[in-house]
């Protein structure tokens, strides 16, 4: 008797395997039935949806990115992105809950010791705890390496002073990965280290929550660190590894944002298509007019192209491609711009109805904008791609 495990069949690059389809469909059903009905309210109130975070935890969705030995489901990048995409189709804020959980934990996955992973992963996998990624500062956005928060060694601890801005989940996270300068004299990219701050902690404060254009249910926080003590055992990797950890993290987390963008765009396309089928003007449904039909066709082409690039990028990054940075930047660049264009067109298709909150497309358009901004602006993505193409100057 010959044994064949179902794991023998890895998905090919052009078709999702049965397992991925099952997973995608399972998340879609949940998104349609339980998340979608809450989306408008989450946007209107701007409140973090604790109930939806618990829903994701209960259904093991937050466990997807974590290794099985710590209670996770051992999902690869493609699996996580499939889930983010389906959730974001219904509600961009909810898709972000999974995406940020992945973003925040990647530094621990990439640079944490076995002991650190065993310490933090179980509660993150179960969804009991949330984690945030704190790199950006008021004066250090695209120029992240210029950040100024410091971490001074003091015996068996570090003392962190400074602050962070625009940190997703900064006010609801139990763990915050903070990037700080440990050696201001070192070369630019060796100045930083990464620390896992356990919250609440003396010296850690949330000083502001932003009122945003979109993803309004996702708390975006300003953090202040005043003599915040962090055990040395909470440092990830060695001193000076911070920049590398941050960049390698973004290489793997950008597809998550691309997935959010693809999901938002798909959701908008579906609303616009349904509207074009139902709405009649001049004696026929508006979808049958060429101007509308052409718009919808272009929207579909855009979403599908962004989606396929995303899936391909996930597979390449997981396979250890040498140009992972390029794949990561490509998929986020294309998906973000597509989401903005498709959601804007969706509002256009709905005409006046697209502008009011009776239909979700105005929210989707507001939600889409962030995918061109965070985890590296589109301009930064282009920089990364150009650099990959051209190499450094001789």
């Amino acid at each position: 008797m010959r044994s064949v495990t179902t794991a023998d069949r890895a998905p090919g690059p052009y078709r999702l395997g049965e397992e991925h389809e099952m997973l995608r469909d399972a998340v879609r059903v949940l998104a349609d039935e339980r998340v979608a009905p809450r989306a408008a309210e989450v946007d209107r109130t701007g409140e973090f949806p604790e109930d939806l975070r618990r829903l994701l935890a209960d259904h093991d969705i937050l466990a997807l990115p974590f290794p099985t030995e710590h209670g996770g489901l051992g999902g690869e990048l493609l699996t996580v992105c499939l889930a983010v995409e389906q959730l974001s189709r219904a509600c961009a804020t909810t898709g972000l809950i999974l995406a940020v959980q992945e973003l925040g934990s990647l530094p621990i996955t990439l640079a944490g010791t076995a002991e650190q992973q065993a310490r933090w992963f179980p509660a993150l996998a179960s969804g009991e705890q949330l984690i945030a990624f704190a790199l950006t500062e008021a004066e250090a956005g695209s120029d992240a390496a210029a950040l100024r928060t410091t971490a001074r060694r003091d015996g068996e601890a570090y003392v962190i002073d400074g602050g962070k801005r625009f940190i997703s989940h900064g006010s609801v996270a139990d763990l915050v990965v903070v990037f700080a300068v440990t050696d201001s004299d070192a070369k630019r990219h060796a100045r930083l280290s990464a620390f896992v701050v356990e919250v609440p902690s003396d010296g850690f404060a949330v000083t502001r929550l932003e009122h945003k254009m979109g993803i309004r249910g996702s708390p975006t926080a300003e953090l202040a660190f005043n003599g915040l003590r962090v055990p040395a055992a909470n440092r990830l990797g060695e001193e000076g590894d911070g920049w590398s950890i941050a960049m390698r993290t973004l290489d793997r987390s950008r597809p998550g944002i691309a997935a959010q963008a693809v999901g938002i765009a798909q959701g908008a396309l579906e609303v616009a298509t349904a509207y074009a089928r139902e709405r009649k003007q001049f004696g026929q449904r508006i979808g049958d007019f060429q101007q509308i039909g052409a718009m919808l066709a272009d929207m579909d082409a855009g979403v599908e192209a962004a989606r396929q690039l995303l899936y391909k990028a996930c597979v390449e990054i997981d396979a250890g491609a040498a140009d992972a940075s390029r794949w990561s930047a490509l998929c986020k660049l294309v998906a973000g711009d597509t989401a903005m264009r498709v959601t804007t067109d969706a509002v256009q298709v709905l005409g006046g109805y697209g502008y009011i909150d009776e239909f979700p497309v105005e929210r989707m358009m507001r939600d889409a904008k962030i995918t061109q901004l965070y985890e590296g602006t589109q301009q930064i993505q282009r920089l990364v791609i150009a650099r990959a193409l051209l190499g450094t100057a001789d």
Partner: protein
Amino acid sequence: MRIVVLTKPVPDPASGAERLLPDGRLDRAASPAVVNGNDEYVLEAALKLVEAAGEGEVILLSMAPATAPETMRKALAMGAHRGVLVTDPALEGSCAVATTRVLAAALKTIEFDLVFAGVDTSDGVAGVVPAGIAALNGLPYLSYAAGIEPDMTARRVRVRRISPTGFDVLEAAMPALISGTQALGEPRYPSLKGIMAARNKTIDTLALAELGIDPSTVGTAGAKTKVHAWEPPPPRAATRVIRDAPDEAARQVVAFLAERRLV
């Protein structure tokens, strides 16, 4: 408690793409394969029983083309513990007689307390294979189950069998073979945990030689039936649409029925 669940990958009935090959055999490549609908109900029943017992396993058994592991994956994701697949190119084109013999032989290689099967499959709809397997292997056969209650201590099983006027309660000793229907209850959606766990579950394959079956007695070579001709059914006449008010509409319906001597 060990329950074998017979499963069959069938062309997806929702696809509408099923068709036959030029020689009359089913073209399995024409549409994606899914687990036969009725098999999911008995699988769900098996999973519930093993979960309630707190021990045991659910084993899938299938006779299918080599691509079957993909279809069995959903059943594994629902919670089945492992699978056994009998696959051999010589089996292509097998009729119900060969299918019965092969599955009966494969069943003999597995230790079990109960075997569950769907009453029929959406591609063949014959509903004869489970009864045949039971007859060949000397197993008590209880069919059209709407409820299944095993008693592991007494080694007996009770089945509620749908009858024209209600239901009968049947009982037999284990091991037994039971065929079941939709009345057993909705199958669960595979959970994410189940979907990911399915990766590491094994499907053991069996070839005909291991079962001691002569290839010339199965497959197209050994088939007892042959499809000679096929065509779409005669088209129905065009639909006549009535949009009148209820009384007038009803009047027209009655006239229509009277014309056809149905009233």
